[in-house]
């Protein structure tokens, strides 16, 4: 899947954090994938996690349980990802 399959994108400080977040989300019945960072978002490690915005709170909760730091959250608006927090 690519980033356009998702309406929310979570970015992290490095590839290690992306893959750690993926490991945490695995098996939690959440729709997500590791996707290339959309071109309008500046994150040099190249990878991000795409999720559905309706599951945003669940994802944030799961990650915060593991004291996991998300560098940025972006929402898709009119075909572009805009910084949400």
């Amino acid at each position, binding site marked *: 899947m690519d980033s356009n399959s998702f309406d929310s994108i979570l970015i992290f*400080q490095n*590839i290690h954090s992306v893959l750690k977040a993926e490991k945490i989300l695995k098996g939690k019945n959440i729709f997500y994938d590791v996707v290339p960072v959309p071109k309008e978002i500046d994150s*040099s490690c*190249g990878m991000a996690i795409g999720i559905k915005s309706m599951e945003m709170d669940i994802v944030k909760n799961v990650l915060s349980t593991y004291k996991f730091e998300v560098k940025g959250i972006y929402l898709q608006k009119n075909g572009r990802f805009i910084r949400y927090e």
Partner: protein
Amino acid sequence: MNELVYLDNAATSFPKPEEVINKITEYLSRYAANPGRSGHKLSLEAGKLVFETRELLSELFNISDSSRIIFTSNATESINYVINSFLKENDHIITTSVEHNSVMRPLRFIERKKHIKIDVVKANRDGLINPYHFKEFIKENTKLIIINHASNVTGVITPVEKIKKIVGNIPVLLDAAQTAGCIPIDVKKSGIDLLAFTGHKSLLGPSGIGGLYIGNNIDFEPVKMGGTGSNSELEKQPEFLPDKFESGTLNVTGIAGLCGSLKFLMKTKVENIREKDKELSGYFINKLLELETVKIYGDLNIENRVPLISINMKNRTSSELCFKLDKEFNIMTRGGLHCAPAAHKTILTFPEGTLRFSSGFFNSEKDVDKTIEALYKISKN
């Protein structure tokens, strides 16, 4: 020619598990891209390999945050990072008399350069260290305790847990070059603050890959800086781990091999390897004790030893023995000083050295029998 007997596993383990060769081949033939540098599929595959290897290491050593494990080329590089960067002018450190030159050489260098004060806890002639002796040397400015987890000369294990209890909050750097993969290591239970390990000895991986665990309470400046694939817009080195200490493209081929060997170790279990090692060491020592011309060094209690045994034979030098075993019997060992003059001074075998047999997971009693027979023949010639 006799069938090859490899008893030099303390130098590097051989043979390697099939998993090591398969994983290296898989990486090089299918996704040998640069991890964490791009958004394409192959870079992601390579990134996943590096991540998985770090997670396996954290499981093996009971480390809760795998980002605090950084990849280096070997234990020597890991130890050098700590000694050269963590220690500052006029600090005091305590180490032991059974350290390898990977510790003593950088220590003696900064002793002069940064006026570091070094106290050495002496092991006895059997290579045993009394943990209470550390207490006598603790000063207000003691910054670090450096401990060789097991001597590469005597094989004797240092009681790190007991030492940590005695030194309290002073950080401990454990040199696990001879122990990672052959005795269980639990950084939480043992209170280890810095763990230096290499991939190519008992972890059974390829050479050129090792690592350093850096505890939450430890911080120091990176020795090298550069591209990390993160924060690329900034000319400032990232502060977060592992990126802070991992500039430049990693040795992913080595990491792939280590990933394969860690999977083998997880499946086999270090506890089982330990039991097998103890059994074979006990068998080996008992057979050596039957040879009148042979002297064995170090405490003989197998509970206190990793599977390596140093000996000398009457009227033979260790290098002569090593040469004869190789040329005449196809048995690989190591003679001399094993890059650890301090340890040899401790057991009074300096400067002549010893002959070291170091077995590994793939050795058997048959290998020991052949070696004993060879030693017997040499002693009679």
